[in-house]
């Protein structure tokens, strides 16, 4: 499961941690690249993985949840509903079916043709529905979700600010470790402010 998820990300970026190139790839995926692909096998990121493994579900207390099963079920559900609609579209052929055996083989060919057309139309419908989601999930393969990153950074800042006070009182403000910690905290704050500005835009 995890392997497939990371394979999808490997396709989009040449090497892990690639900065701009991965962003550009993801942007192209957001546009048209995926429309040419007949079927999408998207592995959604999982926190809830399997019944044997942990259970991670969204609750009122907002625990993170990326449910692969739900995603697959949703896809199956979309496919099922699309299949139903498409079956209706191709149904007009059926009333023309007669008991004539000579027409039987032609009808079978027609049926197979309609099946092919059905599958391509189904897949195109699925693609159009999946495209934005696919790009989003592939992007998530290499990164932690933004809210989680924000929570971690904010918490780390609080802890390190308290630690800085201890450093200053225990080993002094001029000590190299104190200065290193101070610079680190300032770097974290700058990163956080930059992200907040981007979000504000």
């Amino acid at each position, binding site marked *: 499961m*995890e392997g497939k998820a990371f394979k999808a990300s490997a396709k989009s970026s040449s090497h892990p941690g690639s900065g701009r190139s991965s962003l550009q790839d993801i942007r192209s995926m957001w546009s048209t690249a995926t429309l040419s692909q007949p079927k999408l096998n998207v592995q959604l990121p999982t926190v809830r993985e399997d019944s044997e493994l*942990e259970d991670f579900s969204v609750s009122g207390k907002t*625990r993170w949840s990326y449910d692969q099963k739900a995603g697959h079920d949703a896809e199956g559900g979309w496919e099922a509903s699309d299949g139903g609609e498409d079956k209706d579209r191709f149904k007009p052929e059926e009333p023309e079916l007669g008991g004539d055996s000579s027409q039987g083989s032609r009808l079978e060919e027609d049926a197979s043709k309609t099946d092919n057309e059905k599958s391509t139309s189904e897949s195109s419908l699925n693609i159009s529905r999946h495209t934005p989601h696919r790009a989003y999930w592939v992007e998530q393969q290499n990164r932690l979700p933004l809210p989680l990153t924000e929570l*971690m950074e904010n*918490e780390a800042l609080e802890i390190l600010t*308290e*630690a800085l006070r*201890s450093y200053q009182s*225990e080993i002094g403000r001029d000590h190299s470790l104190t200065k290193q910690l101070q610079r680190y905290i300032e770097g*974290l704050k700058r990163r956080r402010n930059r992200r907040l500005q981007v979000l504000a835009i």
Partner: protein
Amino acid sequence: MKLKQGSFLWYLYLDKLYCLLSVRNVKALVEYFHLLDVHRKNTLNGQYFHVLFYHFLHHVTDLTRNQITVVFHMLDWNAAGEIGFDQFYMLVCILLAQENHLEEQFLFRHSRPVFELLDLDGELKIGPDNLYMYNFLFNIKKEQLRDLYYNFDITGDRLLNYKEFKLFTIFSMDKYQESQKAEKEKKNEKALLQKKVAQVNESQRESLLGTKQFESISNYNC
């Protein structure tokens, strides 16, 4: 011990069967650890005032200073004065096991590493004082300790070797599962009772409505 609500660790989840974090959770934990690794040594420094480690635990739990010091000494198994990611991961699993009331399961699944953590002197035996020192982490009550040494100290040396400790974890796990089962049965019985009461009330209401209708019809006929 309680984790601070809304803290990063509070959002993590142990697998209930194996009492370990999933790969995705570990990935997030690694990122978190690196955020705290200010001096880029892949450790949280300890030294004689274990600053970063102390402030981390002080921020996310309600442990006291003494308890944090005890935890630090327990985890610093190579006496390096620092906590690396392995020890950090172990600590997070212990904290989450306590938070989610999975202590018995955690001890059962990871009896060997826990035993080695508690065996501070390296004598391959744990005394009652050792165990009691860490009861705030593993939620072992005083009465339980007494029973533990009475029932499981087979060799009679008032110390627990690994096999005796393992037996204890198996026993507590069994006891825990039985209590869970009993609780579940109790809940089912309660739900069944409530359902029956609701049904009886419903049938009484229907019969009352039926008699009222009959009375109104008979009055109309008269």
